[in-house]
């Protein structure tokens, strides 16, 4: 049996009349976990001659415990049976559901907060169905994604996803005392899901672009003092996406600030950066974001140390 923590538990234990080894009226006793043996509330005969003992445990404060039914025999106590008691709480609604589309594995990975401990085996399922703009329409069910044990994330493989279309996605939690659902997300796996019912919406996980100094030995490049020639290209798996990038650079000086250059193209073979006179060495980083369609900034590329 599974009850709410602190609720009462009623149990009964019956000895059939033909249990020859016992004396006529055995005194049935109870033991909870390692606590001392205790008599039942009531012991009586049943019509078929069996002896039945009934006990009520007013408040079960173990989340898991064994209740034994015993009888005295040859100056020892003999266990007749054992019941496993479990107590806990119904699951709270999972929260903070967020998803990321990984272009390398082509899978949509969602994660969530499971909510407070229920003390009971609780299953979580990431459920979803196909929809249209605004997510009012309920299309076909997509697969029920079962997370690994004790994991609060699940990955929906590419073949179940309809890219560039909206889908409704949520988490369902269930145990023996009840079930609950997270708020629903309306998302386009490739998008930031403008019509999202709640935030934060999913987004495509962009890795940083590849920033590098142009080979100064390159004859076509005339080297101006205080200038640098750069080239970059986007992260390969995201090349099909229109992107714009942002460059930041900072002289290697104590407490120097970053200077930002925005709205740069997603790739270029030759980009000249000048007026770099404050220090012998500069650190440069680049990041990109899906342009004209919603997206999240990639993280900054690893710092590039260069001498103008």
């Amino acid at each position: 049996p599974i009850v709410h923590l602190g609720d009462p538990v009623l149990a009964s234990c019956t000895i059939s009349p033909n249990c020859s080894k016992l004396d006529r009226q055995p005194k049935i006793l109870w033991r909870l976990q390692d606590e001392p043996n205790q008599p039942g509330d009531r012991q009586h005969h049943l019509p078929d001659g069996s002896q039945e003992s009934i006990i009520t445990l007013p408040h079960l404060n173990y989340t898991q415990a064994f209740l034994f039914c015993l009888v005295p025999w040859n100056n020892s106590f003999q266990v007749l049976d054992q019941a496993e008691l479990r107590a806990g709480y119904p699951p709270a609604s999972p929260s903070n559901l967020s998803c990321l589309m990984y272009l390398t594995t082509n899978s949509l990975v969602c994660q969530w907060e499971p909510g407070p401990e229920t003390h009971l085996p609780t299953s979580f399922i990431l459920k979803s169905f196909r929809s249209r703009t605004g997510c009012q329409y309920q299309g076909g069910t997509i697969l029920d994604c079962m997370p690994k044990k004790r994991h609060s994330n699940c990955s929906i493989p590419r073949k179940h996803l309809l890219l560039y279309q909206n889908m409704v996605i949520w988490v369902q939690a269930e145990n023996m005392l009840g079930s609950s659902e997270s708020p629903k997300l309306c998302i386009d796996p490739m998008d930031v899901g403008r019509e999202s019912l709640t935030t934060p919406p999913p987004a495509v996980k962009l890795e940083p672009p590849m920033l590098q100094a142009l080979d100064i030995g390159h004859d076509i490049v005339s080297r101006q003092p205080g200038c640098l020639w750069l080239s970059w290209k986007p992260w390969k798996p995201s090349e099909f996406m229109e992107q714009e990038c942002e460059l930041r650079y900072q002289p290697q000086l104590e407490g120097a600030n970053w200077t930002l250059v925005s709205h740069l193209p997603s790739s270029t073979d030759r980009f000249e950066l000048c007026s770099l006179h404050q220090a012998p060495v500069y650190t440069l980083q680049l990041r990109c974001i899906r342009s004209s369609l919603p997206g999240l900034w990639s993280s900054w590329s690893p710092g590039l140390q260069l001498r103008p």
Partner: protein
Amino acid sequence: PSLPLPRSFLLKSLEQVRKIQARNTELLEQLCATYKLCHPEELVLFGHSLGIPKASLSSCSSQALQQTKCLSQLHSGLFLYQGLLQALAGISSELAPTLDMLHLDVDNFATTIWQQMESLGVAPTVQPTQSTMPIFTSAFQRRAGGVLVTSYLQSFLETAHHALHHLA
């Protein structure tokens, strides 16, 4: 009559007994930790009601050691415990790995004894057939049965270890 028992057979058998004892202790500890069933003496009545048998090693006692009969009792006892351990299958997912390994170790030790009896020409012509096993109908019965079978096996192994030590 004393049998020409090879020393390597005795040493290997002693090691196998200790290997099974270690695994058996592990299962007993797991039954206690997981199900609070820690006292076999509280399950005697239960054992009677289900008819869980004990294997005899009367011919292996140091006072009346008869080698051939002792080997034969050792084999049939191991064979019986193999059956009992098999009847406990489905005891629980936590205990299944230990129970499976224990069953394999007992099975392998029974084979060691049988093959040695064959080499010495004292093996019965026909392999023993398993007697009817108790039927465990509930989770509790499998767990309580597990406690009883492993505690009976532990004392069986204790006697076997003494006898083999005596012979080695």
